[in-house]
């Protein structure tokens, strides 16, 4: 079995959950190695975590370039490591940046690329990826037919499972190529204290039906009672009621939680594109004709301002 490189996404010195999912999936198609870039002094801890989840080797590269330039330094590093290792596949998290990095790596390796896969399995002639397309109305199985399989996978494609391996660190000196945009300033996003939207097991979203920024209070209270992340439709974001970083949909985040609760959201195709692969879907909407009800496992036709607080109280009571 070939070596499978996993680009480990990390923030604030901590491995992000999707990276552990990738390591778990990588074990299905070969022998996982982790690639940790620009982590500074946190590299050792990140490498240890990657080892816990199955990485036999962990390639570590550092340098100011990773923070000071957009995308290209990661492309330089990942391409160099993939070539030296003779990797059979490269797996990257499907984020805006992850996809850009993966695409350029694929081109440099002379390989095809598949983005936004939701599942991965071994096939007769290399890894087979499942994509959920056209707002999740079709499932497509595809593979890279030329070169190294470069595949990006959405968060929540599987649940991370530990499988301790050596996690042997190999330090890499990268030849940087330049020709990148400069990052002249960076402002980390302030954490809401709630789970990361794309990684959360439960997401509670509010739409235009929430009526005002203050209306999101009932959405947040329900989310907190469930330990969930908060999402919003574009209508709610455009109205200025909730930050764009929380938008769910085609031009926002694509989420695939165990449970998605939509309150005051009609269910437009562009919203569905971001949530339709959720395992269980619940909607609260006062219009029984709202298209969101076509998707739901459970729906309540009613006013979200009475249904959500009652549900929150009940959840709290049951959790004790």
């Amino acid at each position, binding site marked *: 079995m070939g070596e499978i490189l996993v680009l480990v996404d990390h923030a604030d010195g901590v491995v992000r959950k999707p990276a552990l999912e990738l390591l778990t999936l990588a074990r299905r198609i070969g022998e996982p190695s982790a690639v940790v870039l620009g982590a500074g002094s946190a590299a050792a801890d990140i490498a240890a975590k990657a080892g816990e989840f199955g990485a036999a080797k962990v390639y570590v590269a550092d340098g100011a370039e990773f923070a000071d330039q957009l995308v290209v330094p990661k492309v330089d590093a990942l391409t160099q490591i993939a070539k030296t290792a003779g990797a059979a596949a490269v797996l990257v998290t499907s984020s805006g940046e992850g996809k*850009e990095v993966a695409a350029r790596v694929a081109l440099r390796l002379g390989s095809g690329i598949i983005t936004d896969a939701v599942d991965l399995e071994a096939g007769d002639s290399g890894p087979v990826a499942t994509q959920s397309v056209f707002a999740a109305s079709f499932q497509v199985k595809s593979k890279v037919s030329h070169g190294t399989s470069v595949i990006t996978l959405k968060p929540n494609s599987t649940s991370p499972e530990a499988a301790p391996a050596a996690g042997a660190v190999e330090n890499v000196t990268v030849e940087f190529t330049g020709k990148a945009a400069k990052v002249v300033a960076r402002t980390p996003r302030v954490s809401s204290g709630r789970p990361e939207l794309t990684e959360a097991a439960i997401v509670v979203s509010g739409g235009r039906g929430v009526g005002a920024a203050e209306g999101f209070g009932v959405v947040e209270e329900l989310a907190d009672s469930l330990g969930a992340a908060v999402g919003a439709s574009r209508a709610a974001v455009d109205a200025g009621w909730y930050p764009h970083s929380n938008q769910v949909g085609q031009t926002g985040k694509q989420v695939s939680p165990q449970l998605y609760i939509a309150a005051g959201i009609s269910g437009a195709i562009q919203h569905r594109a971001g949530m339709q692969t959720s395992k269980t879907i619940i909607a609260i909407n006062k219009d029984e004709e709202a298209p969101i009800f076509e998707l739901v496992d459970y729906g309540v036709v009613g006013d979200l301002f009475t249904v959500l607080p009652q549900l929150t109280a009940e959840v709290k009571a049951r959790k004790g």
Partner: protein
Amino acid sequence: MSLRIVVCVKYVPDATGDRRFADDTTTDREGVDGLLSELDEYGVEQALRIAEAHGDAEVTVLTVGPDDAKDALRKALSMGADKAVHVNDEDIHGTDVIGTSAIIAKALEKTGFDLVVCGMASTDGTMGVLPALLAERLGLPQVTLLSEVSLEGTTVKGRRDGDAATEQLEAELPAVISVTDQSGEARYPSFKGIMAAKKKKVDEYDLDDLGIEADEVGLGGSWTAVEAIAARPARTAGTIVKDEGEGGKQLAAYLAEQKFI
């Protein structure tokens, strides 16, 4: 010399209509209604704003697509772009993103440019990687996924709202940028704009004109292959209750039954 801006726009099936695959596993672009990808309207808009602010600029819109893709070009021209390039060749049908980026890169070189503007993603393939691939092929800086952009002298400046942080980016021209739907509302074509668009020049290129061999592109030249396509099984009809005072409690009971609480 005036500033040459080229906006890449895609002709896509209407997302609110019936989108499907043709028998050869490619997207059905003929049997369904198509239009200019809504997310590329933001690219056209930002290109026009940059051109207006600059004063001496020319905006060209470029598409790779079938005959009907002309509709997308006309729409962009009616918004105010000056001229268009249409790359159209039977052999392009079924090309993957790596191949598409090769075609667009060649077409850009032939057209000539100082700034390439793209949308954040198409509304059909939704990969969001073509701008990065163009930058790679052309050996230029990528300044992508911008929710705010400006050109100051020969420096492109922009704000990128990433997953974990907001970044301020800068690069010198020539460069490739992409803009998000947060970058500013796209204008509607005026009646005058629509009339003027009919007279604007559309250059047509085929693969020969770009020096690309047919076997480098198309379904056969693709480096990815679709093995199977299945319509997602319709979700089994869910339970829908009307709130008569107990809606929240009923929902809680369902969540408990499903072990969420």
